[in-house]
């Protein structure tokens, strides 16, 4: 059996009296596209920082590709690329200098071919020789992505990489990240854009107050926590209401879990003389699931 890309066991971290991580257990397999969601202050960044060795855990163990992040930090860090949430940069250098220097930290020289490829994928090639301080916020964010990739890490963690990035580039960035995932890189993503997480992630953990409160495949989460709604426009709404519908603004909403239920419902409406003249299906979405999970947790 191969070791997982990330293995976290019994991880705790407090800042004074505030428990930022209250016992996290999590395994992420190689090749996964994994989403880490949670409201502000849930502990996502703290978790990522512990994994990257930027903060010291109070208890528990963390491994990247089987390498302990403290005892075998050298190998663990070689295997990990992190795009930090904060928009940090070194104003003294140009984009290309930053990437060459970052490559060198990982023991790599002559990395220009790969650096150019990353720059072109992130649409930064034309700014390669510009000083970091002259870039716009979105461009600086893309340089952060590039910096995380210089050493071709098998595990890539992106902490809100699309905050402040325009629509077109966000699409381009996701294409690039999907490509990396298809090439075998494990991706861990945090974002507050839940439709992005829904579209990209195969599995999702939801965090609240330092704990994981839901952990499952995206498909299971969607079916477990939310029901599809069938919205109908009918001739006699009061009849539909008697059959369990909820009237709102000319429509009657029914909660539906399976397809056969739809058939039964339509048959019963026809028998009662409530002819259907409009129909629409509300798909479950991750936002609904998220709100439900947070409410219950």
């Amino acid at each position: 059996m191969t070791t997982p890309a990330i293995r976290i066991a019994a991880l705790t971290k407090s800042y004074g009296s505030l428990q930022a991580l209250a016992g996290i257990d999590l395994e992420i397999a190689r090749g996964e596209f994994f989403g880490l969601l949670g409201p502000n202050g849930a502990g996502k960044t703290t978790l990522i920082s512990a994994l990257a060795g930027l903060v010291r855990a109070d208890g528990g163990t963390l491994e990247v590709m089987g390498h302990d992040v403290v005892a075998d930090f050298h190998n663990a860090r070689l295997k990990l690329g992190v795009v930090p949430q904060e928009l940090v940069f070194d104003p003294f250098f140009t984009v290309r200098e930053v990437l060459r220097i970052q490559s060198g930290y990982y023991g790599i020289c002559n990395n220009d071919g790969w650096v150019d490829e990353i720059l072109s994928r992130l649409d930064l090639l034309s700014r390669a020789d510009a000083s970091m301080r002259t870039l716009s916020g979105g461009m600086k964010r893309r340089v952060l992505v590039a910096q995380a990739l210089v050493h071709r890490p098998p595990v890539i963690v992106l902490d809100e990489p699309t905050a402040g990035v325009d629509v077109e580039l966000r699409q381009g960035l996701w294409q690039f990240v999907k490509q990396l995932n298809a090439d075998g890189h494990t991706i861990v993503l945090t974002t507050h854009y839940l439709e992005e997480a829904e579209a990209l992630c195969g599995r999702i953990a939801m965090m609240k107050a330092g704990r994981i409160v839901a952990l499952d495949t995206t498909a299971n989460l969607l079916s477990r926590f939310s029901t599809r709604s069938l919205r109908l426009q009918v001739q006699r709404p009061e009849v539909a209401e008697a059959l369990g519908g909820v009237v709102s603004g000319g429509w009657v909403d029914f909660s539906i879990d399976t397809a056969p239920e739809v058939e039964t419902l339509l048959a019963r409406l026809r028998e009662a003389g409530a002819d259907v003249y409009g129909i629409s299906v509300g798909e479950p979405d991750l936002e609904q699931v998220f709100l439900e999970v947070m409410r219950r947790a």
Partner: protein
Amino acid sequence: MPDPDTLPGSFRASIFIGFRTLLYKEVLRFWKVNFQTVAAPVLSALLFLLIFSHVLDRRVTVYGDVAYTAFLTPGLIMMSLLQNAFANSSSSLIQSKITGNIIFVLLAPLSSRVFFAAYALAAVFRGLFVAVGVWLVSVFFVDLPLAQPAWVATFAILGGALLATFGIIAGIWAEKFDQLAAFQNFLIMPLTMLSGVFYSIHSLPSFWQQVSHANPFFFMIDGFRYGFFGQSDTSPWLSLAVVGACFIVLATLTLILLGRGYKLRG
């Protein structure tokens, strides 16, 4: 997936590349603003030299027949070297901490020893650049002998390394620029001024001579001066022992702090 061509041949080589890169980045950082980091300190040392030599040169001699300006110059060179070595490592670290870009170094597989060696050596380079600058300029004003160059080099490098290390500790510990300025104004400056840059401690009352012997800066400057004149207030071997011991203590402390991630890894 990793392309074998870009991966270093061995673990050792990759560590060395990491060290070399961090050193290069630290040197480039001060070199890109060399007007402030090298030219300005050379100019201020030059002003000291001009003023003191104009006022005192014909009136004072030291060690019997050494002209005051000649005596003063090595002190000024060393003072500039020490101050700039300290300024480089401490200000680089605090800037990186405040702006947050220190994480690019912390994310990378760089050990405490590599981190320490690169920051310290870059700071020594800055100190040496400034020192050579002051020395070159002083050639136009002062007739300075060079009795034992090996001692000059030894104390320049060791003194620079000591202050660079001290700068790393200050940079790790400080959270604001004011705290760093306090270090500089209340510790480095007074200790330098009271170390015999401007006078031979033999001209002091014996109590103050004793006090000077508790000041490591005295030994750095005295040993350095020995390299130029072949004479000094104390033996260069004693100075070497004191400065070397101080360096070992501070370097060990720095490695412990870095190993624990003190104030760097929250």
